[in-house]
């Protein structure tokens, strides 16, 4: 698969300017020589494998892929991928990646971050990257805890969660990362889960193709400090009742599949216009929501993000929003191109500035 300059429906691909590799690649090409050092059972392993399996499909030259991470267990990720990479400092990866992406249109730039890294110390850089729509793919590993520092609560932890830093329960209300991203004008927002390899690979591919910032929240199990936080979504039976998978152009449904091959529950607008999960038979068929991630108005995507609850009684996954709007780095570069066309650079002219005068030899005394 070659993706250079794919312009689908007038939309430039996120990879449009990145050179492609004529040679076929395999997952193993993306394995670095570093020993992987997460705890046994950590969800990060599956995500790593999924990414390693997905990257070859992009067909990019490996040297033109860069992973930038912050600090956290998840942020060790770049070490294990045989691409260029930087394990930076806590919370700052989106800012660092912004500089890189702006300077180098020929790179596919990925950010790896955790719920603490992205949403606690790094919250500002995250929302600004999304607002500006820098061409970055941001994978947020949400294990709802600070793993690396041994288990304090994070901005996505449940209120009341008991940790070493909250022995009688966290007093903080959590963020919903998808809602936050939508409030910050994100052009692409998706959610997936470590255990859902297929779903994850799908949103990662979509993110890669998206031009602009793409935020992918990934529910990730931390068996050591927040064991089983997402178990309810992993049990096949529970998952059926709880997980909503968004698919563009399709009705949003869930629950055990009925005879018609569709979920027995649907997401529909209630009479006040708000979203609700109903048994299919109770829903007026016109009120059933058909998913449109390309909707310019993020309000429906936002409403969908609120269907997901912190207690996971309902979890919405897939691509919430994917709309086309100018990418910051493209804009900045376009300004430069235009400037160059209008005024070819002359260092001498700029140095002279405009108002100069000459002191001739004879004026020397």
């Amino acid at each position: 698969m070659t993706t250079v300059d794919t312009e689908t429906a007038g939309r430039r691909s996120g990879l449009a300017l990145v050179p492609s590799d004529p040679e076929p690649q395999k997952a193993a090409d993306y394995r670095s020589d570093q020993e992987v050092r997460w705890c046994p059972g950590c969800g990060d392993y599956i995500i790593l494998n999924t990414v390693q399996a997905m990257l070859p499909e992009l067909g990019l030259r490996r040297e033109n892929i860069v992973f930038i991470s912050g600090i956290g267990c998840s942020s060790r990720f770049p070490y294990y991928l045989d691409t260029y990479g930087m394990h930076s400092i806590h919370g700052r990866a989106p800012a660092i990646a912004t500089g890189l992406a702006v300077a180098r249109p020929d790179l596919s730039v990925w950010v790896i971050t955790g719920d603490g890294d992205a949403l606690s110390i790094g919250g500002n850089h995250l929302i600004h990257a999304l607002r500006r729509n820098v061409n970055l793919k941001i994978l947020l590993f949400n294990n709802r805890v600070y793993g690396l520092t041994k288990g304090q609560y994070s901005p996505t932890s449940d209120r009341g969660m008991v940790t070493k830093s909250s022995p009688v329960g966290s007093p903080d209300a959590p963020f919903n990362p998808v809602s936050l991203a939508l409030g910050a004008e994100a052009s692409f927002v998706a959610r997936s889960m470590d255990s859902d390899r297929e779903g994850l690979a799908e949103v990662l591919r979509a993110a890669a193709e998206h031009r602009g910032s793409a935020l992918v929240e990934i529910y990730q199990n931390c068996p050591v400090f927040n064991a089983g936080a997402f178990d309810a979504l992993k049990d096949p039976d529970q998952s059926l009742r709880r997980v909503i998978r968004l698919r563009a152009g399709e009705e949003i449904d869930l629950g055990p599949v009925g005879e018609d091959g569709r979920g027995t529950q649907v997401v529909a607008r209630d009479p006040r216009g708000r979203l609700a999960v109903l048994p299919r038979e109770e829903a007026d068929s016109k009120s059933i929501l058909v998913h449109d991630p390309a909707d310019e108005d993020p309000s429906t995507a936002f409403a969908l993000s609120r269907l997901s609850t912190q207690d996971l009684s309902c979890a919405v996954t897939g691509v919430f929003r994917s709309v086309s709007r100018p990418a910051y780095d493209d804009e900045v570069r376009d300004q430069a191109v235009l400037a160059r066309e209008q005024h070819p650079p002359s260092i001498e002219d700029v140095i002279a500035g405009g108002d100069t005068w000459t002191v001739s030899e004879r004026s020397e005394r």
Partner: protein
Amino acid sequence: MTVVGIDKVVVRFAGDSGDGMQLLGDRFTLQAAAFGNDLATMPDYPAEIRAPQGTVHGVSSFQVHFADTDILTPGDTPDVLVAFNPAALKANVEDLRAGGVVIVDPDEFTKRNLAKAGYERDPLTDGSLRHLTLHRVAMGAITLGAVKPLGTGRKDALRSRNMFALGLLSWMYGRPTDGVEHALRAKFAKLPTVAEANVLAFRAGWNYGETTEMFATTYRVAPAALPAGEYRRVSGNAALALGLLTAGWISRMKVVLGTYPITPASDILHELARHKNFDLLTIQAEDEIAAVGAALGASFGGALGVTTTSGPGLALKSETIGLGVMTELPLVIVDVQRGGPSTGLPTKTEQADLLQARFGRHGESPVPVLAPLSPSDCFDTAVEAARIAVTYRTPVLLLSDGALANGSEPWRLPKIAELAPIDPGFATGPNATDDSGDYWPYLRDRETLARSWAIPGTPGLEHRIGGLEKAERTGAISYDPANHEAMVRTRQAKIDGIAVPDLDVDDPDSARTLVLGWGSTYGPIRAAVRRLRSAGRAVAQAHLRHLNPFPANLDDVLSRYDRVVVPEMNLGQLALLLRARGMTDIVSHTKVTGLPFKAGELEDVLMDLMEGVAA
């Protein structure tokens, strides 16, 4: 009418923020420049928010010093003050030399205006200006009359008062006038009536001088003997911006400025943002941490990452600069120092970030530190900072300050083609010395100790770097104690070993006292030294541009003197560093008022000290 030749004059214009003082000062300066005088300027803005009209807080001023010899400072005490209202008089009159000339518009001295300025009695009549030469010129009324033919409203018409003053001063100092009218018409090309009003006011001013008998004397300041060449006037911030641009040009690296606005550094951004036609990008980031992060990210991609800020911003950038130290990537950090601590005196100057620049990071994280010594030197220092950053793969700190940033002086245009190119020397293939065929990002150049640098997009050299301690050569994560020790010492050795030019000493008379400064104090120190020498005193002078590492001959130089006087606009930060090198006999002279040293004040201090020595 007498015409008196003088060697220098210091003029200060002062008025309300809205009175166009900066434009006036600017034009007057350009005339002096075009005439061939040497010059230096000092604008002074009011506190950051526009204060109510007519109050002392709202006063804006511009001082120009021009002379027939090379000069070094904007001048200690003005010879002439043009005060556009009572508040401007009040805020500035005490700075004048005795016998100085004051020009005021008497119509402005109404009860109301006097009260706003906080005058209880009218200074024009209460005798308090007795020691000065006072001229009352109805600048407003005459301007109104002059522009009447245009039919401009009163308020707009009065806006041209500044050009009246320009005309009058031009006459007094025999400045060339043709350029002015041309320039005014160009500046206001889109507003022809305004242009015309300005021209008419300017002529009225000139004619006022020529016609009335108010001024018995006019003065002439001959052109200065500057080295031949093409000149422009340049402020420190502009020169710094141009230096960064030039560094990109001669290194063929894209310059990426990541920055967040802050006084007095913002103008560097403003200047560079205008040059997007070069291989240059500016990113106005969400904060200082993002700004330096973006710069470092760009550097990782092979660009010349630059970030500009002032003290509070430098504090915020500390952690990321540490990452630059560990990843050994080029990065230029410009700190335009201002009065501190905290928000402090944001529009004033100070040199109190030197120790922060040297030590304001956790762990052992040395970085080179440079400081320009005059507005135009900001250009050379910026090029030098970039050269060191790229050659040694290291963050470099450049310490400018408010006085340099906003001050200006004539600048002989550099010949870009003659500048030595900067070579990033990107790695293109494997370099492991063990025939593994691997790429080792931390293999070092034997001479510079710079690490190998492969940028993304280079096939086969894929690798990861980061903030954890690195293994020597391979750059892999290493927790090995011996490796850490070696890396800490290597990073230090790399910085210590940076090639820095020897310190020049100006010591024609084999003096026993050396005055050693750094940064923007160059002008006043040099001026003070000249005065002392004219007074027959032997005093040596040297000025540090490299504050880390110091020039190799520094210890030697210093040891040759009985005492080394170190004037600084802080509590003695360079003095501390010198003493820390084991140097004794350091006399620290400090001033922390938010204002530059005056030459006269330094002259006195040095004189006293030397008398002490002699005694």
